């Protein structure tokens, strides 16, 4: 057959480039994680870090102090794991939402997940609940908010996608008002600070218990989005065209929304609100690897993970008083993004 002769080279150039970038991102992510394990005010040198990790599987002679081990396994490791997981989830949820809503300005909290979570967390803080219960409240309210948005939009008439986004914005503002009211009535010396701090987002509270809580949900959600990644391409063409190409757009969109909501809620509930990652990482990845979701989804996962980890390293190392990461993501990310879109040469 004639086509074969000129297909092979053309395909392999594009595919090899994409594969190369994905491999590069994977190596970069692992490298960032390895370096982060050694960074910190309390010194742990590379040899000790590796020895402590190996010791979990193969018992070694102890060359590290118990204090180092405690810090390593209870503070630093969980924090780094959580940064990777949350960065991955927010970026991939953002990418998925941007595709299903055919709107590049959409971020993972478009359906109210963040504001709902913030309201839940504010309630829990007002009630004086523990950090773990605050997370549980935030998670439950995030899901409740998105469910509310979907129920409202199912009853509304008109362009379904437009209605979903509008309902999301409205319900979000409702819960935002709720959070503002909670801040108004709360005790300004103590609880107000907690709520404000939660709204700015932070990975300080990371622990293995929290990771164990959110990991299964995040894994399932990410796996679903990864599996549907090519179908999201088709959704960006619009519902009618998708249907004529054999894809039930509405059903696919609901599955994507559920998966993306679950991972957004699991992220927000343990870290508070971290903006920016879900909006901009997918765009950075598009510049790097193209719009095809088959590549965009894995690229967003890895770039989101490594980006949030780097920013969190800055958050915990740059100054003695930790800077909330929600502020830093914008400080670091926005100028970098502006630089990328204004420079002339393509990546």
């Amino acid at each position, binding site marked *: 057959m004639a086509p074969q002769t000129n*297909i092979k080279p053309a395909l392999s150039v594009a595919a090899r480039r994409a594969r190369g970038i994905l491999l590069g991102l994977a190596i970069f992510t692992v490298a960032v994680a390895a370096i982060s394990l050694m960074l910190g005010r309390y010194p742990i040198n590379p040899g000790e870090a590796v020895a402590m990790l190996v010791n979990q599987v193969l018992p070694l002679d102890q060359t590290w102090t118990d204090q180092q081990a405690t810090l390593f396994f209870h503070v630093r490791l969980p924090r780094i794991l959580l940064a990777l997981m949350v960065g991955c989830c927010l970026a991939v949820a953002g990418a998925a939402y941007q595709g299903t809503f055919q709107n590049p300005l959409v971020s993972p909290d478009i359906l109210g997940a963040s504001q709902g979570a913030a309201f839940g967390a504010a309630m829990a803080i007002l009630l004086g609940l523990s950090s773990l219960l605050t997370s549980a409240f935030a998670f439950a309210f995030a899901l409740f908010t998105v469910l509310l948005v979907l129920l409202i939009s199912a009853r509304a008439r008109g362009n379904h996608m437009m209605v979903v986004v509008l309902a999301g914005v409205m319900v979000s503002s409702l819960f935002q008002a709720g959070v503002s009211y909670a801040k108004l009535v709360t005790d300004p010396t103590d609880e107000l600070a907690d709520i404000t701090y939660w709204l700015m987002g932070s990975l300080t509270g990371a622990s293995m218990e929290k990771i164990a809580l959110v990991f299964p949900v995040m894994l399932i959600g990410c796996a679903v989005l990864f599996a549907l990644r090519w179908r999201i391409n088709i959704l960006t063409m619009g519902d009618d065209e998708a*249907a004529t190409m054999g894809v039930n757009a509405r059903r696919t969109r609901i599955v994507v929304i559920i998966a993306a909501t679950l991972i957004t809620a699991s992220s927000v509930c343990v870290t508070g609100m971290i903006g920016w990652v879900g909006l901009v990482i997918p765009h950075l990845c598009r510049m790097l690897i193209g719009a095809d979701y088959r590549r965009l989804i894995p690229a967003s996962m890895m770039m989101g993970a490594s980006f949030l980890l780097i920013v969190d390293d800055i958050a915990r190392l740059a100054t003695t008083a930790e800077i909330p990461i929600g502020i830093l993501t914008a400080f670091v990310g926005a100028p970098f993004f502006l630089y990328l879109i204004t420079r002339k040469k393509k990546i």
Partner: protein
Amino acid sequence: MSIEVTNLSFAYGNREVLRDLNFSIPDGCLVNVLGPNGVGKSTLFRCILGLNPHYSGSILVNGKDLRALSVRQRAREISYIPQSHASVYDYEVIDVVLMATGSELKLLGTPGPEQLQRAHAALERIGIEHLAHRTYTQISGGEQQLVLIARALAQNARTIIMDEPTSALDYGNTVRVLSCVRQLAREGLSIVQSTHNPDHAFLYSDQTMVLSEGRLRAFGDPKDVITSELISELYHVEVEVNSLYGDKVRVCVPLSEVD
């Protein structure tokens, strides 16, 4: 038969758009649908494509009742070529064509070498293989339309619906797109397209269908259907149909300009 429509009626709420349509389109036939704006052409297409499920009457595509088919099964029988439009994201042309190969994949599957091969073959068949790795949003409107035709081919359905495929194209691209469609029908596909230009129906159709106020006004050989009287009445302009090149071609001329 490629498409068989029996007693088809459709209404948006109380507004009746299609009324009691009956026609059948044989395999390998190129059909042009003529009619003024708002006469129900797009609604008819949406019904045949399964996008307006609440019609009354029956529609058979390649002998299969549309109502009995799932979204995926439908896509294997009939494909759709929309008017070229900007996509939100910058896909490569080959990725746009690949999108049509999903109806045969498992729910969580992604296209493999076989689908890729078919997408390239579709581009080749239209003669735009050189565009495969260009960015879809950066090629011309005419090229985009050809890409969407290639996409429909890659879907491997025997019947294709096109809604005003050339309305946004310049003269050269219009001719290129329409002769490409003509060629595909000769190769055995059934293609139904709507047009605003009766001259196109003469040049590029085996059968011409005329819709008027939601009813089938005429259906048959373009030379029988497109008469001075019918076009004048349909569009409310005085038109004379003239014959050129020993009646190989006919054209409509507005009389107000030649008197």
